[in-house]
């Protein structure tokens, strides 16, 4: 019997695996170009404005290896063990960036021309369409090095394309699991909502075991004219994991985009979220909730970029911080020269639940246009004593009252998702989190 050959572990500082032969040439060269740029770009430094307050010591890049194919094949059990929607239009499941079960898409939608495929498949079957949208956005918030790394090393991800005028009534779901010590994954998400279409996407990232891992993800969203898209992502990797996640959206005329991000896992998280409003009447709502505990550090950078007049954006980030956790929020609203009659709002609220938690807020504005309605607010404070007293006066014990109030605090952002089944998934995850913290 021949022993199965075990390839040597490949650090992500080593040259990446070569792209599969059958992939398009443009993609192969994109990959090798990216590897060159990765080597050219400097590592982020704390003295860079884009990395102010960041604890880069927690971001390691040694001893991290491309994730290998995992032994785990029981996809159903994995899905069953995570919260997901009762009803979906399709599902794709990955472990270590490899598809572990046949991707599904409701026939009703595939007939209408909806594409929902692993990226590896879409690159071959819909090469042109993917090429038109693949990583067309520049990295603006400091992680260009990691954008290049992602592009050079990515193995898979999904491509979701909704043709003009098609509406998906229920969400599609994408699951990513990571398994194996020091495994790195590079999942790519590419979403194109055609003119006048509407759809919802939910993406979940989680660890199978309590292991060190690294997730370097990129998600690009193209909301064409009049489209309506809701995109939700939850991150629940192991407590030893690190994650860099870059979300970029391009919102065209009269299109409406809503994104929601929930962070629970990881020792160290860096999220960069950019929404470009490129057509008149475009609307973007950016929501996020995080509940860090222990020594978790969540670093969130956002940009609301108004390039055209009559556009609006509204950002709400809510963080409830426990123990020695730390958050950094750096938000920027840019209203370009000609983007008159713009509405732009940005709010970051931190609820400090312990004496050793730390919240950093950098809410920024750069306004170059006229007749703009624009404001931002940032607060950091503990649970209100008055509210606590009120609940206690009704007989609720303090820990329970704290939990109720904290839950209420983050729920404000969840409520704005505007989709009951998605809200239920999120609230379920949050409920378990608070219960776990409350039970300590």
């Amino acid at each position: 019997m021949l022993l199965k050959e075990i390839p040597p572990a490949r650090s992500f500082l080593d040259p990446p695996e070569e792209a599969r032969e059958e992939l398009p040439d443009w993609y192969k060269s994109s990959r090798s170009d990216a590897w060159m740029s990765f080597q050219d770009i400097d590592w982020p430094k704390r003295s860079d404005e884009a990395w102010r307050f960041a604890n880069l010591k927690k971001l390691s890049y040694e001893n991290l290896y491309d994730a290998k194919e995992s032994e785990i094949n029981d996809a159903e059990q994995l899905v069953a063990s995570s919260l997901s929607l009762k009803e979906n239009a399709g599902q794709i499941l990955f472990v270590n960036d490899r598809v572990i079960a046949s991707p599904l898409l409701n026939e009703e939608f595939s007939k209408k021309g909806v594409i929902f495929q692993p990226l590896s498949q879409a690159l071959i079957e819909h090469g042109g369409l993917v090429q038109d949208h693949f990583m067309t956005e520049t990295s603006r918030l400091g992680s260009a090095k990691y954008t290049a790394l992602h592009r050079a090393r990515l193995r898979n991800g999904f491509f979701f394309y909704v043709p003009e005028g098609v509406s998906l009534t229920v969400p599609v779901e994408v699951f990513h699991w990571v398994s194996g010590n020091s495994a790195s994954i590079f999942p790519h998400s590419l979403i194109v909502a055609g003119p006048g279409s509407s759809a919802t996407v939910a993406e979940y990232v989680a660890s199978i075991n309590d292991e060190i891992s690294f997730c370097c993800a990129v998600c690009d969203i193209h909301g064409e004219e009049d489209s309506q898209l809701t995109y939700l992502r939850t991150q629940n990797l192991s407590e030893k994991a690190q994650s860099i996640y870059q979300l970029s959206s391009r919102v065209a005329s009269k299109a409406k985009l809503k994104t929601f991000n929930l962070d629970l896992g990881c020792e160290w998280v860096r999220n960069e979220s950019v929404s470009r409003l490129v057509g008149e009447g475009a609307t973007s709502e950016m929501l996020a909730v995080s509940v860090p505990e222990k020594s978790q550090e969540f670093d969130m950078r956002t940009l609301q970029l108004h390039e055209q007049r009559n556009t609006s954006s509204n950002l709400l980030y809510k963080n409830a911080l426990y123990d020695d956790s730390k958050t950094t929020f750096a938000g920027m609203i840019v209203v370009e020269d000609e983007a008159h009659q713009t509405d732009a709002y940005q709010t970051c609220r931190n609820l400090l639940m312990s004496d050793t938690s730390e919240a950093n807020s950098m809410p920024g504005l750069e306004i170059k246009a006229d007749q703009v309605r624009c404001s931002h607010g940032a607060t950091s404070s503990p649970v209100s004593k008055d509210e606590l007293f009120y609940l206690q006066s009704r007989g609720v014990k303090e820990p329970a009252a704290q939990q109720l109030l904290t839950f209420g605090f983050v729920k404000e952002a969840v409520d704005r998702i505007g989709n009951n089944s998605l809200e239920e998934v999120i609230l379920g995850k949050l409920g378990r989190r608070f219960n776990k913290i409350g039970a300590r």
Partner: protein
Amino acid sequence: MSTDSNSGNMIEIDREKANFHYDVEYKHDAGMGLSEDTIDYISNVKGEDKWITDFRKKALSVFHEKKMPTHWASEDLNSINFDEIRYYLSAGEAPKRSWDDVPNEMKETFERLGIPEKERKFLAGVEAQFDSEAAYSNIKDAVAEQGVIFVNSSEGLAEHADIFRKWFGKVIPTGDNKFSALNSAVFSGGSFIYVPPGVKVKHPLQAYFRINAEQFGQFERTLIIVDEGAELTYMEGCTAPKFETTTLHSAVVELVAMKDAKIQYITVQNWSANVFNLVTKRGLAHENAEVRWIDCNIGSRLTMKYPGVVMKGEGARGEVISIALANDGQHQDTGAKMIHAADNTTSNVVSKSISVGEGRSTYRGQVHIPKHLKGCKNNTECDALLINSKSRTDTYPAITVRGNKHSTQHEASVSQVSEEQIFYMKQRGLSEAEAMSLSVNGFVNDLVREFPMEYSVELKRLIELEMEGSVG
């Protein structure tokens, strides 16, 4: 149009009023450029002790080592040519106690700016600096008798070294930033004030900083120490004539408020549009002390100024109230720095900026509440008003809070004077410029009230003049 009815004795001031200069014979001129020789020259003229010369030289090397902060600040800083600036100019005479003894050109300068008149009306003392040195310095007898010291920095160093040295460079170390280092190397003039325990100085002390010379840098150094339970209001005004060349103003102001003391520091600057105004101001507030910065920034090419308060004692309070108006070709980069270093300290920042024409205003703020403290509060509000479609405003605050016993709140907004408001006012017969000026004054009105009456009138008038010709 008129401003306020009740001020029969309104101070007449306008942009052109400050735009004049005299050809003065300077006895001492350190020449163009900056080197150790420049420092030796200044120290020699001033007859300083060796420790001061050493302090200066060390600061010069820090200045050379430090990079221009253009990774976050305006690239325009690179337009300053440090080799084409004169670092010390003086007539070589001690400041006079009587206006009659002040050399004619200088006396006329300050008379045209209305300083002696103000002194008579409502000030407890005045120091008037002309380029590098004070031409006039006087404190009313009644105030001096209370033990209040009010002299220029050289005299402070020479006569009151014990108090001066204790705090000098302690609130703002040489290496705080490139320009505090520059000031530490070549400082001249500025005020030294000491208010003894329990003395509440009723009327304000005032300093007036006048730049007369072309291609010149003014580097005054002010140190104010208000002892336990004492109170002081200090006001400064600044002007310079318009030159084609660059003028540099780079001051360092250190305030020390001992236990239960109160310091209010008021600035009304109206620099001409060729001045780089790069100023470091910080106050140290001990137990239950209060430091308030009230700041109005008009004019200059680039102003970078972020008054700060380090709240070192329990119950200390810090406040920054600022108004900035950026007109064509101007960048007002201002803000506040609030460092909480003791329990139950509170800070408040209210900033209002107006950007006119192609002007740009920027707010930068820092609020820091470190670990193991309790009961700290910060409230920050910054509002920006944009007047034309080419004007620009930015806001870059950074707030760090550690622990669950504090609360911070930051709010910022950007607005315009609406077309409906202008239409309404025009229907009542006001011209567009008058309507705009009224709206802008309305926007800053609540802050203008924080300035003493005499200054608020002047401020309103300055804003009106800046708004003229800004519409249409």
